[in-house]
C-alpha cells in the first residue's frame, strides 16, 4: 500500500498577538509514509512547532487553524469532533516535547502517568496495565523499572524524563510519533542515547516519526526525508541523501555554509544577513528575498511556486522555476556567482569595519603560529578550586561541599583562544566566573599578567577589571532591559575610567558600535528593540568598551540560531585578529570549538580530563570521555560519522563524586585501578595531555 499515513494539505495557522495576527503557518503541505522518519527543519520562530501542534489540534489558546486538511489514513482530523479527536491523540498520534523537565506532571508518579494513557485508550486495568507499563519502561531503557514505577519525575534526570515521555507516547503503539525537538534540552552524550532509542523503537515498531529539529546534524542522522521551513512555509523538501548532497534553496545552502567546523577554520563563516520578516502581513514575493544573495526583481514581485527539481525533491524558489533559462536548470547558481560577488561587495560597504577585520583575519592568522613564542601566558590558572558548602541538620552545619571546580589549571596567551568544553554541570561556567573573581575561588591561584587576582581586593581589583571581561550566554538577561544601549556601554567606561570626558565616551561608543556591526544611532534604543544576535553584539561592545585583554565567552552562541551564531563567531574572530584579544571560550558545542579555538581543555565533573591543541584533541582524542563526547556529536556528513561510543547513565553529582577517576562509572574502558585513585595527567606531546590510567600503564 503506497498511500501515505499522514497527509497535510495547505495548512494555515494564525496566532492572535494583540491587534495583529501572526501567520505562524502559512500554507504547509507534506506527507509522511508509514515506517518513515520525516524531519521538519528550521530555525526558531519558523512555525515548525505550530505545525506539529496543529496536527494534534493542541494549539495554544491564541492559535487557530484557519484552513487546510490533515488526513490521517484518509480521514480529515480537522473535521473530527473534539471527542473523536481525543481518541486519536495518544492512540494514533503521540507526541513528545522539547522540555522533559516541565512536560511531566510533577506531583504524579511516572507509573501512573504512563498508565493513564493505557486507561484512556485500552481496556487494560490493574495488574495488566502495570505489567504493560513496566514493559514500556524496560523498552525505553529505564533500569530497574519495577522499583522506579512509583517514583516522581523530579527523581529522574533530564534524559531519563525524556525516556519516560517516550514511554507515555509509545503506550498505545501509535502510528505516528511527533517528536518536537526531543533532544534540544539535553547534553550531547544524552542526546546520542535518546536518538539511538528513538531509532531503535521506530525500527522495531514500524511507526512513522515526525522529527522537528533545528539541528542539521540530528536531522542527518535520523531522517529519511527532510523538509525545511522558513517563515511559515516549507521552502525545500527532499529525501535525505538528495537533500544533503544537493540542496537547492539559497536558504538551505546558507544554513549548511554557516555551520562551523574544522573544515572552515581560518575562513569566515557564511552568514544570512538581516532577520526573518514579521509574519503579520501578506507576502507579495519570496519571504527570503530580503536576505537572499541571489534575489532579483522577480523575487520581491512574485511569490515563488513549489517546483520539483528531481523526483521527491521540491523547492520554493524562482531560481529553480522553469522561467530560468532551461540551460541553467540543473545548477543555476554559477550564473549568479558574479551577482553574489556584487552582493558581497555591497555587504562590505555596509559594514566596513567588519570587512577590514575580515581581510586582517586572513593575514594575521597566517602569522599566528610563529608569533606564539616563549612569552609568558596572559592568564595562568593553577589548581583552581571552587567549593560551595552544603548546609544540613539542626543548625545548618556544613555537611559537605559541592565541588563545582576541583583543581583546574590552564593558561591562555594573548591573541589565542582556549576552549573549555564540557557538558552542563561540569563546572565550566564556574571556572570562567571565578577567573573573573565574580565568584571568589576557594583555593588556587589566578595570575593575570603577573598579578595574583585571588589576593586583590576592593580598589586594587577594580583597577584590574578593565583587563578581563565577560560575554554571557543569554543575550536576553545579560542586558538591563531598563537601560538604553548607550547607558549599558557607558557603564563600564565610567566605572573603570576608560574615557574621561563625556564627549570621548560618545566617540568611542560610536566606533565600538560600528566595530560590532551596529549603527551608531542604535545607542539611543533599548535592548528589547534588538534581536538575539544584535543583543549579543551589544554585549560584546560593552565588554570591549573598557579595552580588555581577555574576554571570557560563556557559551555566547548557544542561545542563537545557527545562522546568527555564524555572525557572532565571525565577529569574535575578527576582533581577536584586530585587537589581539585572548578568549576563554566556554562551550558545549564541539563544532564551534573545531572552528574557533586554538587550544582545548575538556572538563568532566570539576576537573580537566584532557587538554591540547585543537588538532590534537579533536583529531586524536585520548581520554575515553573526550572520545565519547566527540563520537556523540551528530554530524551532517555521513562520511565523517564516527561510531557512537555509548556512555551509560548520567553525570554524577559534584557534591558526591565517584571515588577514583570521576569518569569510571560511565567509562567503557574502566579498569580496577580507575576505582581507587584519580589518574595523573599523562603527556603525549608538549601541549597534549590526558588524565587516564589507560596510558600510565605503558
Amino acid at each position, binding site marked *: 500500500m503506497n498511500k501515505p499515513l499522514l497527509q497535510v494539505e495547505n495548512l494555515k495557522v494564525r496566532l492572535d498577538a494583540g491587534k495583529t495576527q501572526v501567520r505562524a503557518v502559512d500554507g504547509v503541505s507534506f506527507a509522511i509514509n508509514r515506517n518513515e522518519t520525516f524531519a521538519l527543519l528550521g530555525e526558531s520562530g519558523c512555525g515548525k512547532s505550530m505545525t506539529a501542534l496543529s496536527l*494534534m489540534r*493542541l494549539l495554544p*489558546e491564541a492559535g487557530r487553524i484557519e484552513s487546510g486538511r490533515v488526513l490521517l489514513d484518509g480521514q480529515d482530523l480537522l473535521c473530527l469532533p473534539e471527542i473523536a479527536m481525543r481518541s486519536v*491523540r495518544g492512540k494514533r498520534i503521540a507526541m513528545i*516535547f522539547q522540555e522533559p523537565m516541565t512536560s511531566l506532571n*510533577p*506531583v504524579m508518579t511516572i507509573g501512573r502517568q504512563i498508565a493513564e494513557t493505557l486507561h484512556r485508550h485500552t481496556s487494560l486495568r490493574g495488574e495488566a496495565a502495570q505489567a504493560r507499563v513496566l514493559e514500556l519502561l524496560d523498552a525505553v531503557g529505564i533500569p530497574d523499572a519495577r522499583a522506579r514505577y512509583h517514583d516522581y519525575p523530579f527523581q529522574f534526570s533530564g534524559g531519563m524524563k525524556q525516556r519516560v515521555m517516550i514511554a507515555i507516547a509509545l503506550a498505545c503503539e501509535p502510528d505516528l510519533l511527533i517528536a518536537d525537538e526531543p533532544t534540544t534540552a539535553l547534553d550531547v552524550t544524552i542526546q546520542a542515547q535518546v536518538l539511538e532509542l528513538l531509532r531503535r523503537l521506530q525500527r522495531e515498531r514500524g511507526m512513522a516519526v515526525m522529527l522537528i529539529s533545528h539541528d542539521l546534524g540530528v536531522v542527518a542522522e535520523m531522517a529519511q526525508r527532510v523538509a525545511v521551513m522558513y517563515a511559515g512555509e516549507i521552502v525545500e523538501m527532499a529525501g535525505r541523501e538528495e537533500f544533503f548532497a544537493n540542496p537547492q534553496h539559497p536558504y538551505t545552502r546558507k544554513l549548511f555554509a554557516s555551520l562551523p567546523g574544522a573544515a572552515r577554520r581560518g575562513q569566515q563563516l557564511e552568514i544570512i544577513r538581516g532577520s526573518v520578516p514579521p509574519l503579520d502581513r501578506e507576502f507579495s514575493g519570496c519571504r527570503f528575498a530580503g536576505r537572499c544573495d541571489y534575489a532579483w526583481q522577480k523575487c520581491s514581485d512574485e511569490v515563488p511556486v513549489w517546483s520539483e527539481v528531481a523526483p521527491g525533491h521540491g523547492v520554493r524558489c524562482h531560481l529553480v522555476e522553469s522561467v530560468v533559462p532551461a540551460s541553467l536548470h540543473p545548477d543555476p547558481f554559477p550564473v549568479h556567482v558574479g551577482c553574489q560577488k556584487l552582493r558581497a561587495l555591497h555587504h562590505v560597504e555596509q559594514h566596513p569595519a567588519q570587512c577590514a577585520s575580515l581581510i586582517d583575519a586572513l593575514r594575521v592568522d597566517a602569522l599566528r603560529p610563529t608569533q606564539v613564542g616563549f612569552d609568558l601566558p596572559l592568564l595562568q590558572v593553577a589548581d583552581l578550586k571552587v567549593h560551595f558548602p552544603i548546609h544540613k*541538620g539542626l543548625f545548618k552545619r556544613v555537611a559537605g561541599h559541592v565541588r563545582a571546580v576541583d583543581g583546574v589549571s590552564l593558561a591562555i596567551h594573548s591573541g589565542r583562544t582556549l576552549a573549555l568544553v564540557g557538558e552542563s554541570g561540569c563546572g565550566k561556567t564556574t571556572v570562567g566566573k571565578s577567573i573573573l573573581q565574580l565568584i571568589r575561588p576557594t583555593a588556587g591561584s589566578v595570575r593575570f599578567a603577573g598579578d595574583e587576582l585571588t589576593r586583590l581586593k576592593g580598589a586594587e581589583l577594580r583597577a584590574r577589571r578593565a583587563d578581563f571581561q565577560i560575554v554571557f550566554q543569554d543575550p536576553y538577561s545579560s542586558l538591563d532591559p531598563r537601560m538604553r544601549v548607550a547607558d549599558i556601554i557607558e557603564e563600564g567606561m565610567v566605572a573603570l575610567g576608560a574615557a574621561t570626558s563625556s564627549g570621548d565616551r560618545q566617540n568611542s561608543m560610536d566606533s565600538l558600535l560600528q566595530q560590532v556591526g551596529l549603527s551608531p544611532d542604535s545607542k539611543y534604543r533599548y535592548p528589547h528593540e534588538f534581536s538575539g544576535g544584535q543583543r549579543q553584539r551589544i554585549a560584546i561592545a560593552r565588554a570591549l568598551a573598557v579595552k580588555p585583554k581577555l574576554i571570557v565567552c560563556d557559551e555566547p552562541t548557544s542561545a542563537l540560531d545557527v545562522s546568527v551564531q555564524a555572525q557572532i563567531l565571525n565577529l569574535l574572530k575578527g576582533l581577536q585578529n584586530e585587537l589581539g584579544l585572548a578568549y576563554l571560550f566556554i562551550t558545549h558545542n564541539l563544532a564551534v570549538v573545531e572552528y574557533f579555538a586554538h587550544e582545548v581543555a575538556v572538563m568532566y565533573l570539576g576537573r580537566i580530563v584532557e587538554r591540547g591543541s585543537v588538532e590534537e584533541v579533536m583529531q586524536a582524542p585520548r581520554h575515553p570521555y573526550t572520545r565519547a563526547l566527540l563520537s556523540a556529536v551528530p554530524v551532517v556528513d555521513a562520511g565523517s560519522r564516527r561510531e557512537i561510543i555509548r556512555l551509560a547513565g548520567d553525570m554524577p553529582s559534584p557534591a558526591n563524586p565517584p571515588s577514583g577517576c570521576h569518569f569510571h562509572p560511565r567509562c567503557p574502558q574502566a579498569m580496577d585501578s580507575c576505582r581507587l585513585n584519580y589518574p595523573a595527567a599523562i603527556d603525549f606531546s608538549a601541549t597534549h595531555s590526558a588524565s587516564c590510567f589507560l596510558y600510565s600503564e605503558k
Partner: protein
Amino acid sequence: MINYIIRRILYAIPILIGVNLLTFALFFVVNTPDNMARIHLGVKHVTPEAIMKWKHERGYDKPLMWNSAAQGAKQASDTIFFEKSVGMFAFDFGRSDEGRDIAHDIKTRMWPSLAIALPVFMVGLAVNITFAMLMAFFRATYIDLSGVVLCVAMMSVSGLFYIIGGQYLVSKLLHLTPISGFDAGSNALKFIILPVVIGVIGGIGSGARWYRTIFLEETSRDYVRTARAKGLSELSVLFGHVLKNAMIPILTGAVVVIPLLFMGSLISESFFGIPGLGSYTIDAINAQDFAVVRAMVFLGSVLYIVGLILTDISYTLVDPRIRLE
C-alpha cells in the same frame, strides 16, 4: 522531618521573644502603668493613692525590668517584665485588669469562635475552589468574564455591609434566624448558620478570583499539554492534573490561617453577639483592658508561628518534590 520541626520550633523562640519585647515596650514603656491607671480611674479628680492602689492590685507597681531592691534571682523575677511577659511562654496570661482569669476566659471562649470560624474556613475553601474551577473550565468565555466581574464587585464591598445586609435581610425581614446571640450545644446551630453563610459569601470575591489565577497558571503549563496529548478530556485534565498541582499553593496558603481560627473573627462575632475570642478582644479594646490585649497579641503570634510550621509540613504532604531537611 522531626529534626526539621525541632529546628523550626527553635527558630520560633527568638521570634516570640521579639514579639514579647515589642508588646512589653509598647504597653509598659511607651505607656506607663500610671497612664493606664488614669484611664481606668478617670483622668480628673484622681488621687495618687488611688493610682498606687490600682497599680498594686494588678502588680503594676513593681520595677519594669530590674528590681534592685530585691535579693538574688528576685532581682530579675520580681518585676513587671518577668511576671507579665515571661509567664506568657508558659501560657500563664495572669488576670485581666478587671480581675478575671484570662487563661480561663480564653479556654471557654475559643469554642464559640471555632464554631463559627471553622465552618467558614472549610465551606469557604470548598466554595471558592468550586467557583474557581468553573471559571477556569470556561476560561475566556462570557461565563468566565462575568464570574470575574462578579468577583471583583464582591470584593469591593466592605465586609461590614455583608453582615449588616445579611442581618437585615435574613433576620429582620425574613425572620429566618435570630439576629444575634449564642447558645450551647445543638441549640447553637440556629445562631451559627447566618454568620457562617455571610462569612463564606464575604470571602468568595477575593478567594475565588485568586484561586482562578492559580488554576489558569497551572493550565498553561507544559504537563497539561502532555496530558491533552494523551487524549484526555478537558475535564479529566482539570481534575486529574491541574487540580492536584493547583492544590499545592491553595492548601499551603490556607493552612497558615488554621491555627488562627481559634482567635475568631472580631467583626462578625461582635455583630452577632457570639461570646468568642473575637468579641472578647473587641470588648477588651473598648474597655482598654491592656492585660487582655497583650495576652491576645501573644496568643496570636504563637498561633501564627504554628501556622507557618504547619504550612511547611503540609508542603511535604501535598508536594512529593519537597522533603524537609
